[in-house]
């Protein structure tokens, strides 16, 4: 299935792009996608980073199962305000 990914902040800088699409096996989770992306973009592995996960603009846990055409974002710790 096809997954759309957006990168922000330090992850955008380290991948050098703000969006990507990738193919992943049906039944894959957010954690599976993160592992796959680290293969495609080795610089995504920021030492010590603590990520949150969003699918279609809602926070989810790492074991959330993905669906075709989902929009997934890996969120570095937020720092608004």
């Amino acid at each position, binding site marked *: 299935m096809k997954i759309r990914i957006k990168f922000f902040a*330090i992850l955008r800088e380290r991948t050098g792009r703000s969006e990507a699409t990738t193919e992943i096996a049906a039944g894959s989770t957010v954690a599976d996608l993160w592992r796959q992306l680290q293969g495609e973009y080795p610089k995504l592995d920021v030492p010590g980073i603590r990520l949150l996960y969003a699918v279609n603009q809602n926070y989810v846990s790492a074991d959330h199962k993905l669906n075709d055409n989902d929009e997934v974002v890996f969120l570095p710790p937020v720092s608004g305000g």
Partner: protein
Amino acid sequence: MFRVTNDPIDLNELVRYVSDPEAGAIATFIGTTRNNNDGRKVIALDYEAYPEMAEKELARIGDDARKQWPICRMGIVHRLGPVQIGEASVIIVVSSAHRDAAFAASRFAIEEIKKTVPIWKKEVFEGGEVWIGTQTGQPFTTK
């Protein structure tokens, strides 16, 4: 009104937005860019957001505040892009019949923003730049 913007935030517009004949209080909170942080001389802050989700989260904060306090109207606007020293990065306005609810809801809103809204700040300081909050303890310098 729950939104992010690349333009300077208009406090008066927000105060007009929450004005309500039922209100006896309007609380405003303005977060501003400070010229120093952690011993560094800060030149500016540069904010980035996941804009669609940030606005959804800001609206969720408004809904949660409304469940906890009897507020009349509420607005939150967060600025994106470079924000110079002394300028507002975020403004929260709340109106309520009595002052306690407006104070409490605005305090709640700024604390929630810092925890859950997908907005990131890069500090541009003399000698480099750093994403704030990216790592526990150690700032991650990109230059």
